[in-house]
């Protein structure tokens, strides 16, 4: 087959990726399901959370990083659950130690338990501290262009506005705002959070996003492995549709078959 897609790789913090789908590793039944879904998604970047180890943990207890090994995937530790810049920075320092000096992190500082909306003030503060400590920061934020531009100016590696509240599966709620951010920023813009099904992911990519990060849409599906495969295709389809450039919208019909040569 001839190569019809002429796409450039997704570049984050100087590293090239073929897949534009980034996945989380939360909410799966077990590590085996995580492993299979991640594989089916085709993702190269996978987020993990950092949490306390159990005291007296069984020596044979399965470790997430055995299912998604750092040798195979780019592990993206997140600061999920942090409500202050200080906690987020602490989490990133621990993650860097955990992953042998790994610099790429997903920064999220939350503000509200019901919506899980980001606290942009704390996020800006944390981003500044982390960049000073030489982290490559992929930052979860609101779909606010002004804040997105500020995060880019500070030196964030990627800006990741939400499509809808985390885990809501509502799809892109404010496509116009997402489009503003895509058009104005030079760093990669990824939609993070809120995607529910394959069409939502394709839609986000059709807007021109550089990628989509999702967790619940895959892990929360009845068949997560099949949904991971669907998302893999949706991201590629959406990307290709964006690159192809959609036809203009018209209010009325326009026949596809010629009117000349009709014999009736």
């Amino acid at each position, binding site marked *: 087959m001839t190569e019809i897609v002429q796409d450039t790789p997704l570049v984050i913090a100087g590293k090239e990726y073929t897949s534009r789908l980034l996945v989380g590793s939360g909410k799966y039944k077990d590590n085996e399901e995580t492993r299979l879904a991640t594989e089916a998604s085709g993702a190269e970047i996978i987020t993990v*959370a950092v949490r*306390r180890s159990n005291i007296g*943990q069984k020596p044979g207890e399965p470790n997430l990083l055995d299912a998604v090994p750092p040798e195979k995937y780019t592990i993206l530790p997140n600061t999920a659950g942090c409500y202050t810049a200080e906690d987020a920075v*602490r989490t990133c320092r621990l*993650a860097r130690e*955990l992953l042998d000096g790994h610099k790429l992190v997903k920064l999220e500082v939350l503000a509200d338990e019901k919506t899980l909306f980001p606290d942009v003030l704390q996020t800006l503060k944390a981003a500044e501290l982390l960049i000073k400590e030489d982290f490559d920061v992929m930052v979860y934020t609101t779909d606010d262009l002004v804040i997105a531009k500020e995060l880019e100016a500070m030196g964030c590696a990627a800006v990741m506005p939400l499509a809808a509240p985390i885990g809501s599966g509502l799809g892109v709620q404010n496509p116009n705002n997402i489009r503003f951010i895509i058009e104005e920023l030079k760093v990669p813009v990824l939609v993070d959070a809120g995607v529910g099904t394959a069409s939502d992911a394709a839609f986000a990519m059709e807007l021109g996003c550089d990628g989509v990060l999702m967790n619940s849409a895959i892990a929360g599906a009845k068949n997560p492995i099949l949904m991971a495969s669907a998302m893999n295709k949706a991201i590629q389809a959406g990307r290709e549709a964006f690159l192809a450039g959609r036809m203009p919208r018209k209010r009325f019909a326009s026949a596809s078959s010629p009117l000349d040569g009709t014999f009736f």
Partner: protein
Amino acid sequence: MQIIVNGEQREVVNGLTAAQLVEDMQISGQRIAMEVNLEIVPRSTYAEHTFKDGDKIEVVHAVGGG
């Protein structure tokens, strides 16, 4: 002496090292990270890092998350 490990108070021998704690927790050899009083303790220094009375220690690992 008393130390606090992951929020739990523990009575331990004086001069307990980070390496000994990890062994007690039965997690030696696993991918973990340690913080003592908000400062990272690199894994390469566990053998010589000794705790002091009242130290607040966090031992963490990677779990599923989005």
